[in-house]
């Protein structure tokens, strides 16, 4: 997929010219370069996947997880709840301009906690009210963000 996206970007960059006059930069040069690098790396990753992996690692740089990111312990998410969460968020964002961001997100919080996380009714209602209050107090009142 990485390689495919890279190739697509290289091809797409063609309509803006790959190189300007006299070896100078054209609008398509950098997109083509970045896409090319991505395609080559994607191909390398694909080929690397066929090679047998060595399991020995004693180098501290190999032990360390990326800086600024939480230590990697694999993703814990199973597909069902993840798809449900993304569905709830999509509906929330579609409805937000019509019923208001604060109300839409409070309702989404209730649905997430009650149906996806199977929390108690009290916890779901409390969290939804807290979200609505935070939205109103912090963003609308203090930061004066014109929320829909």
């Amino acid at each position, binding site marked *: 997929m*990485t390689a495919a*996206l*890279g190739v697509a970007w290289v091809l*797409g960059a063609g309509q*803006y010219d790959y190189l300007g006059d006299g*070896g*100078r*930069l*054209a*609008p*398509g040069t*950098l*997109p083509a*370069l*970045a*896409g090319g*690098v*991505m395609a080559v*790396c*994607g191909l*390398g*990753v694909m080929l*690397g996947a066929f090679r047998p992996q060595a399991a*020995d690692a*004693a*180098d*501290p740089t*190999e*032990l*360390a*997880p*990326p*800086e*600024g*990111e*939480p*230590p990697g312990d694999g*993703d*814990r*998410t199973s597909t069902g*709840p*993840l798809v449900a969460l*993304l569905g709830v968020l999509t509906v929330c*964002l579609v409805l*937000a*301009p019509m019923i208001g*961001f604060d109300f839409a*997100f409070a309702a989404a*919080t209730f649905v997430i*906690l009650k149906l996806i996380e199977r*929390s108690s009714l009290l916890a779901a209602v409390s*969290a939804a009210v*807290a*979200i609505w209050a*935070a*939205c109103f107090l*912090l*963003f609308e009142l203090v930061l004066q*963000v014109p*929320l829909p």
Partner: protein
Amino acid sequence: MLNDMLQGAAASVTPENILYCFLGVTIGTVIGMLPGLGSATGVALLLPLTLTLDPLSALIMLAGIYYGSQYGGTISTVLLATPGDSSSAVVLFDGYPMAKKGRAGGALASAAIASFVGGTLSLVALMATLPVLSSVALEFGPPETVALVILGLLSIAGFTGGASLLKGIAAAAFGILIATIGLDAQSGEARMTFGRVELFGGLGYIEVIIGIIAVAEVLRQMGRTAGTPMTAGWRDMIITREELRRTWAPSVRGGVLGFLLGLIPGIGATLASFFSYDVEKRIAGDKRDLFGTGMVEGVAGPESANNAAANASFAPTLTLGIPGSGTTAVLLGAFLVFGLQPGPLMLEQQPTIVWGLLFSFWVGNVLLLVLNLPLAPAFAYVLRVPYSILYPFILFLCLVGSYAVTNRMWSVWVTLVFGVIGFGMEKYGYPVIPVILGLILGPILEVNLSRSLSISHGDPTIFFTRPWSLGVIIFAALTVVVPLALRRLRKTSHREQVIV
């Protein structure tokens, strides 16, 4: 220079800025403690809330979140054996065994003191280094800037790529790729916009950063359950005389090592803490085998190193415009949002902001020491909040925060889409920090590449004929080749040992 420093110091200790620093380190400590929220996520999450502040106050608060989260991560590591931030992961080896022996307080107090020592040492060194680096950077023209961007991209991609350098470079290229969406700065032509008017201005840094780091992290961590932290009473927080004596030397060593490593773009606080642990273990002599059973040196050294490296990583960020670590890459985005362009001229043009920010690090370190020694047990109660209750709030902050940047629903959709992209990337082992770096450095690369080729009349050898440019390109190549060579060497010697 002295006058600028004094003005910066005065700006950092105004009641307003001390308050923002306090808020930053407190929120940072809580964020760092919560497993699943790293310092980069914390800064990305709260960036929209600082948009109404003046730039110095906002940067002081965001930097406070950065180093506050380093210490917060230590609390959850020691009490719960779950590192909140990657830079605290190494403290697990000895901090948690200390807690199991009833010395959680000793470990946390030693970590707080070591952080303060490392932070203070590195700050003094940073203040001495910054003017020198700035004056060197002033000699740089467009070809050198291109070389620096390549160095920044390769070093971050190399070190955050974990097992695969190729995936790191691909992620950085993806960042550059999405940076090319929008109007071309040179010709004014709309590129890769797919006919969408919203894409003419390109994809906003903050929306992408919040999505690819914070939203992706929430999606990844769904299903996490709350742990039961070990309790540490206020009385337990008193460090013994023996523990204090054994804290000083590793703190100083960690501070020096962390500062030197933090100066190199891409190394960052995490690797500095791992290297420091390795050093402490190597020089321990007979006690070497006791590491992993609750040695205070194994807590103090890495803690000091990660704090020192966090400070030092601001040197390449402020003087060269090349982030020294993942979190400073996010902070670099914050600088740009506030209309500040980190680089060689930053110290000359914005001395109050640069010196004010640096002095605020020390103020923040004092606040952390004062806060954390007595209040760590109280902070630990946050660890009992179930993640299922917490993540809707985080998502809410992410999505409303991205709306607040542009007041358009478009931004919220961009954040959600990049959240899914970030989740997918992490799932398949692609690091996300290089994407941010590519997104931020892409436009700088394009402008300077264009200028360089104009200067040379299209001759690409210009990058290899200028000494500084050539030197930086060689260094960039070394950051890729050396770790690969070392890894191969270790594997070979490991195989030989197995055969013998």
